[in-house]
């Protein structure tokens, strides 16, 4: 049994931990905080800009998809499907064709896989739909969304504002407050009673994503049955429920599979001197009680990119990887990191760790730096995930590839 250490508990780290644990290895997952799932829409973007399957074969050789390989992507998606099916939160869609889902702004989000509650909003489904906001919820504006959808030629039947049974309570609530209320059968019963009169003439209705956190598929089906319409959810501003649900599902399964989760401490990389510097021996965890050494045969680094702290950008114009200080591929000097508009492609988005097709980090000559250190997910360079619409696909494929090379 191999001792595996995974650093980072976002989509990549959780997925890699599950793969390794279900393969029968002893997995420890260390994480400084929550991963980025709560900031994500909860779908699996594989390639947003064009037909995915064709685009993937044309990428640069250093692109994470090319390095991980199409087989890893397919196997990863298969495993992801199995996890979500078993968690009773089934996903629809496929690698070869994107769903087109409406966003809270009324733009179109092309994505490969989405949970059923979001996928039912597919704009290529011909069923007419209406949009509904929830009274006093500040994170969703259906009028704006409807207006922008209509502007692109998509018909929105009507826009409603639905009341909620919170009378007598001073409320300025968030989507996660609401989702936890929807987890309760009494709340659903009462809310459905409030909503039912508004459903006349509506077949399909889009709502902000608030339909439950712990057992969302059941909440969806229950509400659909009570209201007699097909419901679909639209992700809102973070914290974003569909992303949080994935985190709940993956964490729950990881703990059930025997993954040892250590949360809180910062990890500092530890190199195995006896190997002549060719191997890492684990990490030192900066716990409240002092440093604690954690050794492993294999380390999978899934600390994420700039947002999640895997990569740190310094005022002096340098860019550093935060656990092992392995070299990052970037342009020197702050002024070339960003551009004038936030909606353009940003050079910094493509910075990250360069690896070979075994997900091992490379030195200047292109040789692996450490034999037993594998890198996956947002930490990898060579892709502009935001503009490509490839974030979760890269996370899954590279996590799969790293575990496959290290353990299978």
């Amino acid at each position, binding site marked *: 049994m191999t001792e595996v250490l995974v650093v980072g508990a976002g989509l990549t780290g959780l997925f890699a931990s599950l793969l390794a644990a279900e393969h029968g290895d002893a997995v420890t997952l260390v994480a400084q905080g929550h991963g*980025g799932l709560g*900031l*994500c*829409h909860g779908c699996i*973007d594989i390639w947003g800009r064009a037909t995915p399957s064709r685009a993937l074969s044309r990428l640069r050789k250093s692109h994470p998809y090319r390095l991980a390989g199409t087989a890893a992507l397919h196997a990863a998606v298969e495993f992801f499907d199995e996890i979500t099916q078993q968690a009773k939160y089934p996903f629809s869609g496929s690698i070869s064709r994107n769903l087109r889902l409406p*966003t*809270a*702004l*009324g*733009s*179109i*989000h092309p994505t490969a896989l989405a949970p059923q509650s979001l996928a039912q909003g597919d704009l290529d489904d011909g069923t007419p739909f209406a949009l509904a906001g929830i009274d*006093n919820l*500040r*994170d*969703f*504006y259906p*009028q*704006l969304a409807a*207006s*922008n959808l209509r*502007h*692109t030629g998509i018909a929105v039947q009507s826009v409603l504002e639905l009341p909620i049974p919170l009378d007598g309570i*001073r*409320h*300025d609530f968030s989507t996660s407050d609401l989702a936890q209320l929807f987890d309760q059968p009494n709340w659903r019963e009462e809310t459905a009673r409030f909503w039912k009169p508004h459903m006349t003439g509506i077949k399909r209705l889009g709502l902000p994503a608030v339909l439950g956190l712990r057992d969302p598929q059941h909440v969806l089906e229950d509400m659909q049955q009570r209201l007699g319409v097909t419901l679909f959810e639209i*992700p809102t*501003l*973070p914290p*974003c429920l569909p992303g949080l649900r994935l985190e709940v599902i993956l964490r729950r399964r990881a703990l059930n599979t025997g993954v040892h989760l250590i949360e809180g401490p910062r990890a500092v990389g530890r190199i195995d001197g006896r190997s002549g510097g060719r191997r890492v021996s684990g990490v030192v965890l900066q716990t409240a009680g002092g440093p604690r050494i954690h050794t492993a045969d294999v380390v999978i680094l899934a600390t994420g*990119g*700039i*947002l999640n702290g895997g990569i*740190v*950008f*310094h*005022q002096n114009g340098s860019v550093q990887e935060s656990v092992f200080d392995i070299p990052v591929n970037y342009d020197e*000097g*702050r*002024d070339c*990191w*960003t551009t*004038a*508009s*936030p*909606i353009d492609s*940003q050079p*910094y*988005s493509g910075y990250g760790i360069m690896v070979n097709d075994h997900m091992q980090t490379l030195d200047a000559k292109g040789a692996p730096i450490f034999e037993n250190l594998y890198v996956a997910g947002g930490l990898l360079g060579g892709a502009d995930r*935001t*503009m490509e*619409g490839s*974030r979760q696909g890269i996370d899954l494929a590279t996590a799969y590839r790293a575990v496959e090379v290290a353990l299978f």
Partner: protein
Amino acid sequence: MPALSTQLLVIGGGSTGLGVAWDACLRGLKVVLVEQGDLGQGTSGRYHGLLHSGGRYVISDPTSARDCAVENRVLRHIAPHTIEDTGGLFVATPADPLDFPDRWFAACQKLGVSAEEITATEALRLEPALNPRISRAFLVQDGSLDSFDLLHALTAAIKRAGGQVWLKHRVEKLILNVNTVVAAEVRALDTGELITIRADLFINATGPWAGQMASMAEIQLPITLDKGSMVAMATRTIHTIINRCRPPSDGDIIVPIGTVAVLGTTDVEVQQPTDIAIEPWEVDFLLAQGEILVPQLAHQRPMRAWAGVRPLYRPNTVDLGSTRELPRSHIILDHADRDGLQGLISVFSGKLTTFRLMAEQVMDLVCKHIGIAAVCRTDETPLMPTSRSFYKLPDRLAKLEATTSHYFPQVICECELVTRSAIEEALRATSTHDLDDVRRDLRLGMGPCQAGFCAYRAAGIAHEVAPPGSWLTAFLEERWRGMVPLGWGHTLRQMELMRRIYLELLQTHSISEPTK
């Protein structure tokens, strides 16, 4: 073409123009003010927030120093609601010339600028975050002045007195009759309509645009444009304005204002009033200088950088040297005397602190031309606080917490505690429904997340109040611009979060918004 007549047309809606218009109203003149953008969109809104004691200029520019000292007292009297009486300190650090404090202190006393020496220990007791190695410290009467509150109060006062303030109206042409300016052609930027305004006198109070405005009457102004960059730190850290006690130079001041501390400034000569891009060295320099005064700034997060363009007077006799050497006191040019052109007066340079004095002197000249004997009353007439006094965060919090209504107010911008009703009110009060105007009115999106969360919410509300304009992208771009010069560490993470929300979650780049 629609036309109207007035006695005085003031061009420019910064502190100078509004000050002139207010003074004119009090002297009983009919006045119209036109501004091409929003209130304080130029230099008045792009400053560090310092109400000068005068101490900064006692050596380099005694006239400015004396004016500041007097006007400081006047403004505290007429517009106390715009000022936080932070007090100021001039401190000498080990990096500063040893002989300067004594010379400086003597000059303060000579010019009537109030200054009191305290021991370094006392200064540190007052401001524990100060560099412990300071050798001398002096208390002065600095304050922080909220220019947006001031401009709103002036505008309200002008309107109450019967004057008119037209925002988003740009002067496109000055019409001359032989040697007299008789009218201006003004474009309403929202509707595209062209209006002719006839007036007895025209005041060019356009700040860095003064040169361009004068050239419409074929006059060259001796003006140099000088960019000053500033950095706002995400925390306030200090509660007293801290000045370096040394000859005026770059990066010599920290101003606590509202929830932030502003590090100022640099001096870079530029060609256009719109040249406000900030170079990386400017930011590095300001942060390094700030650390000399308050060492813990090194561990804090810079939140936003911006630059204003000072219109400085450069007579032909001054050699091309550093713009730091140019006098900072204001200049009033009567083009009748100077160029033989009747009907036009230009006023530029000066400080926000002395805007009222500039206006008084301009209006004295105007009265002489028009032949009336009214005296200035702006120094004794208080400006009423406007309902838009939104600047102080604790006040907003108290108001929120005191809410007794059934529904708790929806907080749309959590950093600056801006509520839904405040946004709706602001949107209804303007004709433009531009999110950036709402920002200037309410501080929407000016906190640490720089509109990452509230931009979408505000766009949604704007759409409900007045479809179809939302201009979300333009607003995000404006917020982004202030973060780009600070794009490393936590600020770059914040920028990435903005992109994750607006591009990955909301796919903002794939919609075409209604154009302005």
